[in-house]
């Protein structure tokens, strides 16, 4: 089946006074209908910028897309004008933001904020839009929706606001839903509720979701496939099982190793040493080499291509080259890989 969204060699750069920051440096991925793709990586790895580029929300004129294509519905979104993108945003593609406390307009009733997209894209009358907004509030689990629709954001709790944001995103039945760390700002119980809600809605509407997060626990819970981003590139991509049971990239090992486990209270968390590279002057070779204890000479000289591990699983590390020494992931990571098997199963049931 053809992917609904196909991103090819996407580059995003920002011009600053100090120079050009290459925030995204060649990202490829495809999103299938009804699937959830999680993009993980630490802060500054380019996750959010990638999705902003998809939505055409990269701040101009500083930010621009020098190379690459975003194919959606037979169109290359990078070539569309702002006016044309406006017709796609909110209708075919919509977005859920990180912090529900700041992502709703404080001086506008939530009903109006939900209705706005409906009136704009589906040409509904005010009355129809209002009825639909009430349905949406019911759908996202806001009780007493007929009354709540006329309230302002400050009258809602954080979790409820995120439900409203979800309702806004779902208003026009988008084909692609981008969730940029939708649960990061919420407490754990609310996180679980919002995740459940999103899974539920995906089942009902068959939406494709791009889920950005740095919480691997959330990834195991919601995603079908995972793309690990580092320094503006995807370094490993595969199904959830590929990434959690058979990770190949040392950076993925590092991410898994730095994740706390449920039972292992006696062991230390392993941090990835160092900091991400300066993307104004990206290093030659593998961007992760400086922090990689398995780095080889070639890592400093040449960037690794994506090596195929299986049909679904690719990783960009020279360790997968035939001539590379066989390296096993560290013990702690192996433990967590197992830990995740049980944790993942629990989450799924």
């Amino acid at each position, binding site marked *: 089946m053809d992917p609904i969204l196909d991103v090819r060699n996407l580059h995003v750069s920002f011009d600053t006074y100090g120079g050009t920051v290459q925030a995204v440096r060649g990202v490829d991925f495809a999103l299938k209908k009804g699937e959830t793709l999680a993009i993980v990586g630490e802060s500054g790895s380019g996750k959010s910028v990638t999705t902003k580029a998809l939505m055409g929300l990269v701040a101009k004129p500083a930010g621009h897309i020098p190379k690459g294509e975003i194919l959606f519905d037979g169109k290359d979104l990078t070539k569309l004008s702002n006016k044309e993108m406006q*017709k796609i945003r909110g209708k075919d593609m919509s*977005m859920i*933001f990180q912090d529900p406390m700041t*992502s709703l*307009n*404080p001086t*506008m009733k939530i009903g109006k904020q939900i209705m706005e997209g409906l009136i704009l894209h589906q040409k509904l009358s005010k009355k129809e839009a209002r009825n639909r907004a009430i349905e949406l509030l019911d759908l996202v689990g806001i009780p007493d929706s007929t009354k709540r629709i006329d309230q*302002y954001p400050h009258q809602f709790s954080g979790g409820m606001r995120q439900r409203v944001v979800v309702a806004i995103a779902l208003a026009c039945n988008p084909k692609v839903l981008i969730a940029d760390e939708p649960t990061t700002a919420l407490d754990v119980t609310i996180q679980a509720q919002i995740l459940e809600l999103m899974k539920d809605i995906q089942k009902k509407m068959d939406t494709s979701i791009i889920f950005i997060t740095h919480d691997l626990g959330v990834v195991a819970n919601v995603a079908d496939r995972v793309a690990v981003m580092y320094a503006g590139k995807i370094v490993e991509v595969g199904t959830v099982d590929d990434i959690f049971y058979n990770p190949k990239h040392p950076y993925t090992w590092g991410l898994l190793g730095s994740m706390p486990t449920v039972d292992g209270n006696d062991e230390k968390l392993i941090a990835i040493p160092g900091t991400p590279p300066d993307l104004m002057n990206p290093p030659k070779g593998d961007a992760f080499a400086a922090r990689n204890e398995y780095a080889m000479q070639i890592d400093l000289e040449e960037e690794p291509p994506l090596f195929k591990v299986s049909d679904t699983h690719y990783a960009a590390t020279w360790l997968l080259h035939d001539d590379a020494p066989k390296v096993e992931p560290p013990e702690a990571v192996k433990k967590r890989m197992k830990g995740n098997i049980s944790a993942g199963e629990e989450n799924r049931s």
Partner: protein
Amino acid sequence: MVKYIFQRIIYMVITLFIIATATFFLMKLLPGSPFNDLGGKMTEAQEQLLMEKYGLDEPVPVQYAKYMAGMVQGDLGVSFQYDNRNVTDIILTRLGPSAHLGAQALIIGSILGIILGMTAAIRHNTWWDYTSNVLAVIGISIPSFVFAGLLQYYFAVQWRLFPVSFWEGPIYTVLPTIALMIFPMAICARFMRSEMLEVLGSDYIELARAKGVSNNTIMFKHALRNAVIPVITVLGPMTVSLMTGTLVIEQIFAVPGIGEQFVRSINTNDYPVIMGTSMLFSVMFIVIILIVDLLYGLIDPRIRITGGKD
């Protein structure tokens, strides 16, 4: 809401009482008396007679009590300098031109300022932004009488487009209005620009963009309302100072306004007019602050006042 306004009105009365008291005693500390500047044309007996007539020979607290008793009944006394004209009368005839000028300057100035600030924020870091910034700084830092003088010289004296001075019809209001409105315009532009930049960088604007809302709708429906709140804060007090007349502008354009009247009363120790005018300014100030507070609630639901139960 009604309860809140009622409460505020009680506070206002208390505030006014305190202002009246303080003004009265401070005013009595002014050197001189209303009748001592006649260059020895008046004998002491005559002066004594006048003092008695106006009750100025009594001890200050007694005068105070009498004045307050009169004020409560709406009697502000009679002026010493204008043949016993009623103070209320004087103030009302003088307030007209000042309020007219002030309102005109405020409305035009703030609207232009808001537009200027908004466009500067939208075109952040372009020549338009820089130009409007420079204009705003000029408007804030150069006093209005400089503009008044320049306007008068070029538009009235040199090019004869507008009358030089006096107060005889709408055309006479043009130059003083422009001179007066530059400051509020510059202030609004500055505030609006910085507020707008902050709002435009906020998450909810990004969400509105993600909804596919057009730029214009974002500006006017989403951003303006949130950005205008601090502007209203500065506009409140500015309204009072503009409406109650600016002495210098009124002098330059020979406008028979209340600012000019106020200063003359102080120079001549015209106690009832000083008191009357001070009270008027205070009332206006307090009322406008109340209006501003109510406006906040209207614009920003987060600070909407709910009387106890929602």
